[in-house]
């Protein structure tokens, strides 16, 4: 395993998360969280996604196309994708404590917390101590947003599904640790659905006509991670990039 890969993996997986019973959570008779209970709702009747979540599998972080959708990379993208793998991911931004992209964070197995407040859904990521804002106050996407690591995200409800559109994602981000590339034309559509108390489905569509011949989709399941809290995770070890040399 290369150092770059270890860096991208982030914190030690078997870390001890704190044991704090989440208030207001439905429980079975034995006191365990009832993950099959109905999803909670906000006062306005919309599903409430608040809580700590994680993707149990790291496979989508490693490869967003792990489930085998047809990914038709244009030649320049195929070349760059191959280069990144040949170099053991030495240029992966997260190896230098730079943010993961939004698809990476959706796929990351470290916990994330959603706080759903009126007009704004905030995501706190344990890894990299980073956050993301999704505006749900009805504003449109900006016409010409500044390129940003997290882009600019607005969400709207389609029934019980929150549809989040993101543009303005800076071209330094990788879609996954393997290095699926993208251009400034990338538009990410995430469809968040909470079928029951303990589960979330995150369907991601990658639409980037400068990089892929047609849009492709991945669906990442999240499990609720109850009775705990996010830990303090700071990417402090920024001395290692000098040793990430690739080929």
């Amino acid at each position: 395993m290369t150092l770059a890969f270890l860096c991208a993996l982030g914190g030690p997986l078997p870390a001890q998360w704190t044991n704090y019973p989440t208030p207001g959570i439905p429980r079975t008779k034995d006191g365990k969280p009832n993950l099959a209970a109905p999803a909670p709702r906000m006062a306005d009747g919309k599903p409430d996604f608040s809580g700590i979540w994680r993707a149990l599998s790291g496979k989508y972080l490693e490869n967003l196309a792990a489930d085998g959708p047809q990914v038709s990379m244009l030649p320049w993208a195929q070349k760059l994708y191959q280069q990144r793998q040949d170099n053991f991911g030495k240029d992966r931004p997260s190896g230098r404590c730079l943010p993961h992209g939004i698809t990476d964070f959706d796929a990351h197995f470290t916990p994330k917390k959603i706080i759903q407040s009126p007009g704004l859904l905030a995501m706190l990521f344990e890894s990299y101590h980073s956050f993301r804002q999704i505006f749900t106050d009805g504003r449109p996407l900006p016409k010409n947003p500044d390129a940003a690591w997290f882009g600019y995200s607005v969400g709207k409800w389609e029934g019980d599904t929150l549809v989040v559109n993101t543009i303005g994602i800076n071209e330094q981000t990788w879609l996954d640790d393997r290095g699926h590339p993208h251009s400034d034309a990338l538009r990410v559509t995430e469809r968040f659905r909470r079928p029951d108390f303990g589960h979330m489905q995150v369907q991601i569509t990658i639409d980037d006509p400068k990089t892929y011949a047609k849009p492709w989709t991945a669906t990442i399941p999240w499990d609720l991670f109850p009775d705990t809290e996010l830990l303090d995770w700071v990417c402090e070890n920024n001395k290692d990039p000098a040793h990430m040399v690739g080929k």
Partner: protein
Amino acid sequence: MYLACAVGLALMWTWAAAPAAAQDDIFAQPVLGFIPKPGWPPAGPVPRLADGKPDLSGPWAPNALRVNNNTDSQVKDIPIQPWAAEVLKQRRAGIGKDDPEGFCLPPGLPRTNTTPFPFRIVQSPGLIVIIYEGGAHLWRQIFTDGRPHPKDPNPTWLGDSIGSWDGDTLVIDSVGFNGKSWIDAAGLPTTESLHVIERIRRIDRGHLEIEHTIDDPGAYTKPWKITIRPMLLDGELMEYICQENNADVKHLVGK
């Protein structure tokens, strides 16, 4: 963003070099890179939530450059212990080359509230979150569901924060720090015994007041206070990722 940062640093140096101002003047400082439009910040009463508590949510500009640069220019007679005064002197002589912020590390408390970067307060039942544009692009959680501090918290950059209401003032109590953070860019130190109490009050629609009590018997002989008055931001947080400029670390050599 690199340019903005360079300009910011230049401005900070200008302010740092200015003679110490009277305490009250810190509330009249311009916000870095932000010239309020006429009529800003908006006037009016404090907005309230359904439960009657003040609504603190929104984007805020800290307006506290001098505090961030040289806290001792704003707070008279900081009760600093001799060893800590020596550390401060050494850090000043080193022109801040070891400042954790220079390495994109979290500013800790109280400094995370006084860096030039705006922050947004998100208020939800049982939990208040503060997200920070820069200083490091990070978040803080303040639990308001009545839980106590953990008995033996892991030392962290931002500590463990619990909040409660004292009338219309949110009182945040934080412990469990790692002692690595600096209180200001000059280098006022902290230790693992740091205990910070923030009293946050929305004065009116356009202003917050945050009084920080710094209680760190490891470095100071008695608790002391830093008060800032953030202004409502006309706009959204931008994205500032410190690590993008981290190629500069090797040039921070001090004297």
